[in-house]
């Protein structure tokens, strides 16, 4: 962030926070996602120091991703529903300030990095307690239901979220150059075994280890709301439990703890236990979704649009996802 931008940001924040004494004492990039840029902001205002995060778009923006203003609205709705999220503070659509829309939220403590979280026996009060806490967080997200005027940008829910997901990933495959018979095999199995639709709820759509900050006491923040949509609540449970998001750990709930504890925490907050068969259906869908997205990411490298070793290596995740897809179909069918 250059001097001019930082000065413009400080001016804008003074107005937004109604704090004439606001000073930015530090601004450093944080490790962000592939799509967004995150900046850690240290500020002083009203005579005290605060730690914030500024979230803005990087150059390559996925069309499926929500805008910063929408993500801000999702955070507000989540906060109101009791989900543990960083408090959203200000949102700016004026391109004159930073050249891209951004929002500012409080900075949560703790760590998110998946490989570190799954290795710890003590984070969040231990594996059992943390898995339970994750279940409660998911249930609180799913308590948000349409209609919800503040989330109007989400559009109308699909009549059948499962069938809609099958159609979405088939359409994505059709836009790719490489035929993917294994992914087709998985999708066809899902089509033949689809559970009946349930009333729609807010689905986070990237609720997994790596996107959830935790400290020794528990969950400090559920992050990365840009894929949220109306859908089947089991989508999030299957995504969190999917083997591809366990970071090599044997624990079924996100590599963190037992699946039973995760379900129990969910039941505690939701009032009823998750339907395990439905979660398994979405767990297979999770591997399919990640495989289709990984292939898309590699295509961005292969086409020359965005040469990147990280994107190139993401393509090499596809075979192991396919291995798991075949295993899961084989087990379901048995």
């Amino acid at each position, binding site marked *: 962030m250059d001097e001019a931008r930082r000065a413009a940001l400080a001016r804008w924040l003074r107005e937004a926070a109604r704090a004439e004494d606001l000073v930015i004492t530090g601004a450093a990039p944080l490790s962000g996602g592939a799509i967004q840029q995150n900046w850690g902001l240290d500020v002083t205002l009203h005579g005290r120091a605060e730690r914030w995060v500024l979230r803005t778009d990087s150059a390559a923006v996925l069309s499926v991703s929500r805008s910063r203003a929408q993500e801000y609205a999702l955070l507000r709705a989540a906060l109101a529903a009791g989900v543990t999220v960083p408090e959203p503070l200000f949102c700016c659509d004026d391109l004159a300030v930073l050249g891209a829309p951004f929002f500012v939220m409080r900075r949560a403590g703790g760590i998110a990095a998946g490989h570190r979280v799954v290795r710890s026996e003590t984070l969040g009060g231990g594996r059992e307690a943390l898995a339970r806490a994750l279940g409660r967080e998911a249930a609180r997200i799913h308590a948000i239901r349409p209609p919800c005027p503040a989330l109007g940008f989400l559009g109308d829910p699909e009549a059948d979220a499962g069938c809609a997901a099958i159609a979405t990933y*088939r359409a994505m*495959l059709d836009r790719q150059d490489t*035929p*993917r*018979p*294994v992914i*087709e*095999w998985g*999708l*066809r199995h899902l089509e*033949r075994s689809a559970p009946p639709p349930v009333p729609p709820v807010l689905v986070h759509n990237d609720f997994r280890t790596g996107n959830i900050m935790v400290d020794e006491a528990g969950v400090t923040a559920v992050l990365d709301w840009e894929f949220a949509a109306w859908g089947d609540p089991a989508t999030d449970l299957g995504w969190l439990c999917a083997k591809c998001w366990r970071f090599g750990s044997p624990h079924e709930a996100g590599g963190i703890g037992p699946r039973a504890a995760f379900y129990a925490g969910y039941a505690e907050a939701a009032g009823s236990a998750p339907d395990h068969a439905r979660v398994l259906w979405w767990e297979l869908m999770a591997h399919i979704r990640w495989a289709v997205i990984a292939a898309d990411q590699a295509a961005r490298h292969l086409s020359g649009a965005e040469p990147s*070793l*990280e994107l*190139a*290596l993401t393509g*090499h*995740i*596809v*075979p*192991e996802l*396919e*291995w*798991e897809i*075949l*295993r899961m179909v*084989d087990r379901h*069918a048995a």
Partner: protein
Amino acid sequence: MLREPPDGANLLATAREVVLRELLPVLPESAQFAARMVANAMAIAAREAVQDASWEADALSRVAALVGAAENPLRAFAAAIRAGRLDDDAAAFAVLREITRKRCEVSAPRVLKEAGRE
């Protein structure tokens, strides 16, 4: 045979050891992720270099036997699966497994090792 050894796979494996043992320990933390990615890419490329590629032709002929004459047998295979023409077809499942196993040998040998232990 006429090319000068060491071959590509040997060079990749040797260079990868340099990245992991000599460079990684002295790199700043901000560059460690990139260095690990470089080492990972070299490992994949080295495994690809030593794999006998004849399995691809074998697999494609098995696919062609399932879907009949087609300009692109793999595409025809994918389309037949989607259309439900190969539902519960044991031969189709077997060739999918074989293709995936060979793909994992290069991209993710770890999962094959795990499967072997189960």
